[in-house]
């Protein structure tokens, strides 16, 4: 056991955990905000939505599908020039963020749209009849009603983001994936690989637990 542990560079491990958390949290926050706004626009511009607009809906729908369809590892390579241009580097946490955000925001937009679509149409019609304005329907009816689903899809996305940060590790993003790949795979240092995997699992479990707790607290149905 001590021989196993001695092969691990704990400082590097510590930095890698921080990097993974940083990448996950930053891209999660930005992707959630972006995805939330896009999801709402997508929902309200639907044919039977509150502000129907065919052109905006179609374009948005297409862009969202497009980015969701490109496999993440390919998206990273496709975005390389763009990343260098806006972040100044393609390496480290900074280099990973654009791809992480651009792949997860459309995912969250789609999840928002689904969550909103599942709200009983009767409730929306009723709110309209009772004199709620469209903006009030969005903020006081739709968003509160969809909140549990919005949070649980956030959890799903956070976990898949942890996975994506590991993939980004292949091109030198830093983080646990990068550590596992460079030390564990390239140098055949199994203890590092297993330990990195262990911490990835811990992070994923913690995210799931936090997500479930929040949903449980706010879901009053």
């Amino acid at each position: 056991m001590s021989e196993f542990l001695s092969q691990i560079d704990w400082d590097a491990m510590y930095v890698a955990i921080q990097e993974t958390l940083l990448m996950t949290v930053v891209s999660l926050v930005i992707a959630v905000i972006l995805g939330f706004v896009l999801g709402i626009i997508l929902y309200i511009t639907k044919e039977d939505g509150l502000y129907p607009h065919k052109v905006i809906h179609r374009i948005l729908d297409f862009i969202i599908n497009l980015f969701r369809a490109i496999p993440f590892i390919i998206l990273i390579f496709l975005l390389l020039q763009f990343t260098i241009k806006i972040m100044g580097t393609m390496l480290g946490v900074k280099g990973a963020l654009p791809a992480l955000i651009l792949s997860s925001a459309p995912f969250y937009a789609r999840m928002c749209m689904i969550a909103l679509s599942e709200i009983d149409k009767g409730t929306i019609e009723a709110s309209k009849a009772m004199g709620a304005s469209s903006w009030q329907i969005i903020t006081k009816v739709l968003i509160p009603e969809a909140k549990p689903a919005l949070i649980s899809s956030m959890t799903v996305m956070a976990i898949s983001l942890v996975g994506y940060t590991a993939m980004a590790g292949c091109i030198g993003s830093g983080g646990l994936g990068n550590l596992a790949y460079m030390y564990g795979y390239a140098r055949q240092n199994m203890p590092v690989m297993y330990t990195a995997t262990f911490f990835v699992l811990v992070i994923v479990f913690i995210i799931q637990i936090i997500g479930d707790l929040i949903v449980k607290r706010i879901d009053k149905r």
Partner: protein
Amino acid sequence: MIILEGKNLRKTYGYAENKVDAIKNISIEIEEGSFVAVVGTSGSGKSTLLHVLAGLVKPNAGKVYLQGESLYDMNDDRLTRLRRRKMGFVFQFFNLITTHNVIENIVLLIHLDNRQVDEEYVDEIIDLLKLKEKKYAFIHELSGGQQQRVAIARALASKPAIIFADEPTGNLDAKSSQEVIQLLKIAQRKYHETVIMVTHDEMIANVADRILRIEDGQIIQDTAQKNE
């Protein structure tokens, strides 16, 4: 005094051979403080009439006046505001907000209108509708009858000029139906509200002061009845 008036209302759905005359030529006057039931079989046009009178479905011809204001001659924003302030609604499927509790549902519309909640009055309604113990309960914890009572409390809370009830007992069993309709009646009398209710249930219609029978898009009978 006449609070709501529909003049020469006509509403058709669809085009050409699929055209359906939902309302053929209906004129109607609703007395303030009265409880009016509109009865008819499904497809008779009674729901369409209610929707037209409530400013929800624009008729092909005719006018609707609520307290002298023509509903379909104002812009959408104004109509929305008017609906919020002067109309209350009770729906067949309750349509309460499931993430809010009972009291939050009841005062939601008042909040949407940025008005102060008259706590005393709201508590009185809650008492009247026997919801006191359920004040902080969530919607999923309530029976259908209780949910509809919350919906009635919500309709009353904003002190509307008129309450529209669309098959309010359509989703309830016989016992809850009677309870809900009696409570609606008691509240209507107490607060001197005007209620116009659509139903296909004769027993439920019996609580009304006036029964309008609709068939094939026309009023075929208009009877006043004594009711205490």
